[in-house]
């Protein structure tokens, strides 16, 4: 366990809310889309009008099962509860959520570092609407009035609750990043934190090294990126340590992360916390997926990021057995996160050099992952082959790849267009021989070891080939003739 401040240990549990990209909402047939005109995707059910009743969306259940199975959970018969509290953007003034009988239980995530974090549960629930406070400072207390958009009300969410087993801000970030990759891989979520389709809360506590009992935790909300998650945990842990070292105590409460000040502040204490008065939702029935449905969903899951990293690592080891795996682990994580591993593994399988394929994947391709995923393996292999064989230089190869990402065609066409065609070996040999014949004195000096004339001879070849020749190949050609 890492010590964030000497003598202290950190414990973090993360609660991640993930919007499912189902066609319709959780309990009605309204479209589940982001960015529509306010209050256009609504109906009596998601508005909670008197007399309306919920009907469960089967696709949402399947997506929840995909997530659970991808997180190594058990899928179990489950029920919904009502979580009761008043809030204007919650149409029924209760949220339909799963409580003590969730659909997915007891799973785990293996981080790229090899650390395993337990998953307590991953349950289904409905999202709330969205309130905008108008006038004043845009905060609730000084607003002139508030507007509510119910388009999001009833959008299906899966809440993934980790066990309190994360022990550093880095692991928290790695966990969230890995979870996001898994969610995207299942097809259940687009994983976009910036649009709010992935939202994270952190339960943070500290304890003195050597103690076994967990410290009092605070729940930190409002982190909008991986980076702010790490910063918020660091700040909150330091705050708690400082408080405890000064003889104070941590109060269990909910705290708000402020990105611009880089600090957390109290939202509400445990005493002010709502009593949600959970009870089983009488308008819905038990969800009991058959074992054949569960197995069908499990069987249809694509390989998860962990499996794909292992596959890529194995391909690398085979392609470049002399390389130390730790030297390219970060590149593997990047490539898999961006779902570029199919391209890279495919290229290696077709004979491309592993180190080169991975480097191009983790850099140039990773800069534009959407376009890179659309590349054909054949085109990528062709490009890498041209670079390996020296037909084009590394700089040229990167430029060609950029053009390929722009959709400007196959590598050969781009090379022709950019004038990187080079000169084939036979033609180059003729030109090299001609240059030697035309410059006998210089050639003699070169053979005697005068390196300065090497540049001159190369320049002559380049002039003859209008710069198309590959410098490395020209040097090789001179070398071969020198040793004859």
């Amino acid at each position: 366990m890492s010590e964030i401040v000497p003598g202290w240990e950190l414990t973090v549990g993360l609660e991640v809310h993930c919007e499912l990209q189902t066609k319709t909402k959780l309990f009605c047939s309204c479209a589940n889309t982001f960015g529509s005109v306010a209050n256009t995707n609504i109906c009596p059910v998601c508005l909670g009008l008197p007399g309306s009743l919920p009907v469960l969306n089967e696709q949402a259940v399947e997506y929840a099962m995909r997530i659970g199975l991808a997180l190594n959970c058990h899928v179990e018969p489950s029920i919904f509860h009502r979580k009761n509290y008043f809030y204007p953007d919650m149409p029924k003034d209760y949220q339909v959520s799963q409580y003590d009988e969730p659909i997915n239980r007891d799973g785990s995530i293996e981080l790229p570092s090899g650390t395993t974090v337990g998953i307590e549960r991953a349950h289904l629930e409905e999202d709330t609407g969205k309130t905008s406070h108008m006038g004043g400072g845009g905060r609730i207390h000084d607003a002139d009035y508030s507007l509510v958009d119910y388009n999001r009300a009833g959008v299906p969410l899966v809440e993934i609750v980790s066990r309190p087993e994360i022990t550093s801000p880095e692991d928290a970030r790695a966990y969230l990043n890995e979870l996001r990759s898994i969610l995207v891989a299942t097809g259940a979520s687009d994983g976009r934190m910036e649009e709010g389709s992935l939202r994270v809360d952190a339960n943070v506590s500290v304890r003195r090294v050597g103690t076994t009992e967990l410290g009092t935790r605070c729940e930190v909300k409002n982190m909008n990126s991986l980076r702010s998650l790490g910063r918020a945990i660091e700040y909150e842990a330091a705050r708690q340590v400082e408080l405890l070292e000064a003889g104070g105590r941590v109060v269990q409460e909910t705290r708000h992360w402020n990105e611009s000040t880089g600090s957390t502040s109290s939202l509400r204490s445990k005493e002010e916390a709502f009593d949600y008065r959970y009870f089983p939702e009488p308008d819905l029935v038990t969800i009991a997926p058959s074992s054949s449905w569960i197995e069908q969903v499990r069987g249809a899951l694509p390989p998860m990021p962990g499996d794909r990293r292992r596959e890529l690592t194995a391909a690398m080891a085979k392609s470049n057995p002399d390389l130390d795996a730790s030297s390219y682990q970060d590149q593997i994580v990047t490539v898999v996160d961006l779902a570029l591993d199919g391209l890279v593994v495919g290229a290696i399988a077709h004979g491309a050099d592993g180190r080169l394929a991975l480097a191009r994947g983790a850099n140039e391709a990773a800069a534009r992952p959407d376009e890179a995923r659309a590349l054909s393996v054949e085109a990528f292999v062709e490009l890498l082959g041209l670079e390996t064989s020296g037909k084009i230089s590394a700089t040229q190869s990167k430029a060609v790849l950029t053009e390929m990402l722009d959709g400007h065609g196959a590598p050969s066409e781009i090379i022709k267009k950019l004038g990187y065609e080079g000169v084939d070996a036979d033609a180059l040999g003729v030109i090299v021989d001609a240059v030697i014949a035309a410059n006998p004195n210089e050639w003699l000096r070169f053979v005697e070891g005068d390196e300065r004339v090497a540049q001159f001879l190369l320049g002559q070849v380049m002039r003859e080939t209008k710069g198309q020749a590959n410098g490395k190949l020209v040097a090789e050609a001179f070398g071969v003739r020198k040793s004859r």
Partner: protein
Amino acid sequence: MSDTTRMTATAIAAAVRGGELSAREVASSALNLIAQHEGELHCFNVVTSEVALAQADAVDEKIARGEDPGPLAGVPIALKDNLCTRGVATTCSSKILEGWLPPYDATVVTRLIEAGAVSVGKSNLDEFAMGSSTENSAFGASKNPWDTSRVPGGSSGGSAAAVAAGFVPIALGSDTGGSIRQPAAFCGTVGMKPTYGLVSRYGLIAFASSLDQIGPFSTTVTDAALLLEAICGHDDRDSTSLRDTPTSFVGPLAEGIAGLRVGVITDFLSDADPLIVTAVRDAAGALASAGATVDEVAIPELMSGLAAYYLIAPAEASSNLSRYDGVRYGLRVDGPDVAKMNAETRAAGFGPEVKRRIMLGTYVLSAGYYDAYYAQAQRVRTMVANAFNRAYERFDVLLGPTTPSVAFQFGAKIDDPLAMYLSDLYTIPSNLAGHPAISVPFTLGEAGMPVGVQVFAPALGEQAMFRVAKAVEDAQQAGCRGPVELSAGASR
């Protein structure tokens, strides 16, 4: 124009379908009677004359075109004012919903329109169906047409009174703890609560979701069966709606009751009014004469039902009624912030009984009390259902009183909630178990007021239940059922 207000729904539908009566004639006849007597009875929160005439004309046009106008062609009906009707005010007799116009019809309303029924108005109820007398209506109580100094019962008192007055031959109510059967007994009408899930709840404004069922009022058992046929059956919009349920209830009535085993619930005879106990015993005797095997059965667990009900129903109600917060529809009383606006709106919009049940329900679900109250009540609920089901191993149906007394005077119980709650002692167990039950007028009791006898059946046992109810009806005392004579002075 002929007066059709004393005809049964079965007779009206037959005459309209056969071209002997027009739906417009029938609707006008009903609207005329309502116009004359609604002032003294207050059965309705709104009388929808225009809707009724338009629906009647649509039926007549269908007939003119040679199309099937449906099994309830031209039959006037009253709809309890907790059933959503598109564009027609639906209030639950609460100020908090006053003026709200639902943008959709309840599934039962859609099915009634398809069946050719003609909706004449939204009938009064205890606010949000919480009560046994309609005295909790925010818009004034309905009167019992037998004696306007007495309550019609509740919560579906407006529907019961409208049928008893002859305003309509049939009506819909909702029954959470007896809200159809108790007013039916008080008003001398038939009133039936179906198996939970037999009738869609979509568009029924919830009181206690796990207990609520919509059901028919009528003057005869046959009409109740006919109305149930029109509204029952699976609905994709209600997740608790059952699939593959029986659809025919009128036809099996002809089978009689020979060989059916009837158990008289003795626990329900110890505290009831002596004339009511006599009525139940007489009805049992009549069933035996008609060929049933009759025996007594003690089911003491049923007596625990009331206590469990008054924990479960308020718990669900406290949550169901949260949405009336002034944000989206209905009443809004402004306040300095949202929480104050919510509180002010609810303080002004809900009546005292609704507030009492919200408080009670909020309390029993609170952290630290859930297990002692709500969870315990659910165990009692299971116990009640199991006890019923054990009895149904020996009996096809059970028999008992509907209420402990006949309709009481206005004001008699309104200040004593516990006394009021006891009116539902014999009806609540069926709601807890999700079983069907029906109240049939059998005789006249104290003060010449009607007495209902209740027939209970296991889940989806409606057919046997109706057959036995018909046999009770066949033995009923003349003059014990509506419609009553409404003369110049309806009060007697």
